[in-house]
C-alpha cells in the first residue's frame, strides 16, 4: 500500500509541472505585456528597460523556471512564514512573489481573499450533492422501474440536461424577481457574525440559490452514476449468495452491495472535479459572487497574465490533488488495484 501511494504521489508532481508548463506556453502567446498598459508618454527605451526588469526578454524556459520557483518555493514559504512568524534564511518580501499586473499586489493574496466565497458555494454544493445523490441512486437501482425510479431518473435527467447558467437564471427569475424570497446576487461585503442569528440568516439566504443550483448539477450526474453502478452489482452472484445464506435485505444492500458499488463513485467524484469547478465559475458569474471564477474572468479580460497563470495553476493543483486522493482511496477500497 505504501509503495502504491508513493508511486501515485511521485506521478502527481511531474503532472503538475507539465500542466504549469502547458499553461505557461499558452499564455506566452498572449499579445499583451505589462508595458503595453503604461502611459504613452513613457519613452521607448524606458519601456524596454521595464520589460527587461520584469524578465520579459529572457528565454521562455528561464521565465518558466522563475515563475515555477516563485510559485512552488516562495509562495509556500511565505504562507508558512505568515502563519508561524518564523523566517528561515530571511523572510520572503512581497517583491519576491508573483505580482499581478493590474493590482500590483501579490496575486496569491488576492486569490486568498476570494477563496472563501468559492469554497462556501463549491464545498456546500459538493457535500449536499453527494448526500442527496447516493441515497437516490441506490434506492432507484434497488427499486428499478418503480415510480420512485422513474421520477428519480426523470428529475436527474432534467438536472443533468439543464446547464447551470440556465437553471441559475430561472431560479433568479422565479425566486428573486417574482417571489422575492432570496437576493439575486451574493453580497460578499456581508461579514458573517456567528454570534448573531440575523447575520447567519442573511448568509444562508444568499447562499441558498447558488448552492442549490450547483447541488442539482452535481447530484444529477452522481445519482445517475450511482444507480448504474448499484444495478451492475445487484445482478452479481455474490448478492445471490448473500441472500441465499439468509442475510436480511438491509444487510445485503447496505453492507454487500453498497460497499462494492460505491468504489467507482469515489473515482467519479474526483474525476468530475474539473466539471464542478467549471460549474462553479459559471455559478459565480450568474449570481455575481466575487470568488475565484469571477477573478479569473476579470483577469482574462484585463490581460493580467500572472493572475490568470496563478489561478489556472491553483485550479489544476486542486484537480490533481483530488485525483491523487481518489487514487489512494480507490487503492485502499479495492486491493486489486494495488497490484501491478
Amino acid at each position: 500500500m505504501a509503495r502504491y501511494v508513493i508511486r501515485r504521489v511521485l506521478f502527481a508532481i511531474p503532472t503538475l509541472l507539465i500542466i504549469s508548463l502547458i499553461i505557461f506556453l499558452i499564455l506566452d502567446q498572449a499579445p499583451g505585456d505589462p508595458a503595453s498598459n503604461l502611459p504613452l508618454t513613457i519613452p521607448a527605451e524606458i519601456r524596454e528597460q521595464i520589460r527587461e526588469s520584469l524578465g520579459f526578454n529572457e528565454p521562455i524556459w528561464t521565465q518558466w523556471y522563475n515563475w515555477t520557483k516563485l510559485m512552488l518555493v516562495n509562495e509556500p514559504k511565505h504562507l508558512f512564514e505568515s502563519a508561524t512568524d518564523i523566517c528561515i534564511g530571511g523572510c520572503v518580501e512581497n517583491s519576491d512573489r508573483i505580482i499581478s499586473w493590474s493590482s500590483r499586489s501579490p496575486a496569491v493574496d488576492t486569490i486568498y481573499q476570494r477563496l472563501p466565497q468559492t469554497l462556501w458555494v463549491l464545498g456546500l454544493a459538493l457535500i449536499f450533492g453527494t448526500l442527496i445523490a447516493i441515497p437516490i441512486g441506490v434506492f432507484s437501482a434497488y427499486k428499478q422501474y418503480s415510480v420512485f425510479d422513474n421520477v428519480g431518473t426523470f428529475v436527474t435527467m432534467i438536472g443533468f440536461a439543464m446547464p447551470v447558467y440556465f437553471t441559475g437564471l430561472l431560479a433568479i427569475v422565479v425566486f428573486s424577481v417574482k417571489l422575492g424570497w432570496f437576493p439575486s446576487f451574493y453580497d460578499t461585503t456581508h461579514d458573517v457574525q456567528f454570534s448573531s442569528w440575523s447575520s447567519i440568516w442573511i448568509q444562508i439566504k444568499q447562499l441558498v440559490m447558488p448552492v442549490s443550483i450547483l447541488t442539482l448539477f452535481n447530484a444529477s450526474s452522481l445519482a445517475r452514476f450511482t444507480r448504474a453502478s448499484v444495478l451492475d452489482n445487484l445482478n452479481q452472484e455474490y448478492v445471490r449468495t448473500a441472500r441465499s445464506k439468509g442475510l436480511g435485505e438491509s444487510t445485503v444492500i447496505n453492507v454487500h452491495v453498497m460497499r462494492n458499488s460505491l468504489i467507482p463513485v469515489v473515482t467519479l467524484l474526483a474525476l468530475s472535479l474539473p466539471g464542478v469547478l467549471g460549474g462553479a465559475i459559471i455559478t459565480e458569474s450568474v449570481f455575481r459572487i466575487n470568488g475565484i471564477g469571477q477573478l479569473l474572468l476579470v483577469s482574462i479580460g484585463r490581460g493580467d497574465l500572472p493572475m490568470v497563470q496563478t489561478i489556472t495553476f491553483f485550479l489544476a493543483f486542486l484537480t490533481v490533488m483530488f485525483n491523487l486522493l481518489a487514487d489512494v482511496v480507490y487503492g485502499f477500497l479495492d486491493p486489486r488495484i494495488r497490484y501491478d
Partner: protein
Amino acid sequence: MTDITDGIQVADELPDHRSLRSDVWRQFRRHRGAMFGLVILAIIIIAVYVVPFFYPYDPFENNVPERNLGPTWKHLMGTDNLGRDVLARVLIGGRVSISVGIAAMLFQVLLGTLVGILAGFFRRVDGPLMRLTDLFLSIPQLPLLLVVVALFRDPIQERFGENLGIFLLVVFIIGITNWMQTARIVRGDVLAIKEEEFVLAARSIGTGGRKIVTRHILPNVLSAVTVAASLGVASAIITESALSFLSLGFPADFPTWGRLLFDAKDLITSQPARIIWPGVMISLVVMSVTFIGDGLRDALDPKLRSNG
C-alpha cells in the same frame, strides 16, 4: 464487449438471419426514452436546419418600432430589444450550437479512438499514452478554454474569417479537452478484444497488424464509441453555450443558444421569457441526446438485452 462478438457469431448461426444492426434497432425501439429522444432531436434538427429557409423573418434584421414584444401570432416568441424575431434567432442559433456539438464530437471521438486503439494494441506506447490521458484529465477544462479562446480569438479570426475562425477554435478546443473518456473506454475494449480467439485466428492465417485493427478490432469497439459519441455531443453543446454565456464564444452578431441566454440575462426583470427559449432548447437537445445514448448502450450490450 466480448459479448458483442459472441452476439455476432450466434446471430450468424441462426436459421432466420438477423444482423446485429436489426437486433440493435429492435432493442433500441423498445427503449421509450430513447425513441422519445430520437423524435425530439429529429424535430429540432429539421427546425434548425430547414425551417429558417421558409421562415419569413430575418434573424439579423432590426425592426426597432416592434421591439420588446411578448409572444404574438406574428412573432411566436416575441421580439428582442432591437425588434428582431426571437424565434428566428433561436433557430439560427441552434444551427450553430448543434453544428459545434457535432463537429466537436467527431473530433474528440476520432482522437479518442485513435489514442485508445494505439494504446490498447501496441504495448510499447500504452504507458506513455495513458499517462498523457491522465495528464489531460487533470487539466481544469473550463478555465483553460476561457484562456485559450480569449488569447487566440483574434489571430485565428484574422486567418479564417470572423465566424469560421471562432467556430474552428471552439471545436478544436472542446475536442482537445474531451477525448480522454473515449480513449479510456476504447483502450479497455481493445485490450479485451485482442485476447479473443478470432483475433488469434486472424493472426494465425497471417493477417497483418493494420488489417487486424481495421477489420477485427475497430468494428467491435464501435458500439462503445457510439455511446461515447452521443454523450460527447451533449457535453460539447453545453460547453459551447457556457463559453458564449461568459461572452467568450461567438461574436455578438452571430447568435448561438448560449449567446442568446447571455443577451437575455440583463433583461431578466422586463423580459424573463427570453431566457426560457434558448435554455429550453439546450436542455431538450442535451436530454434527447443523453436518452439516445442510454438507449444505444442498452441496445448494444447483449447482457442487458431481453430475449425476442
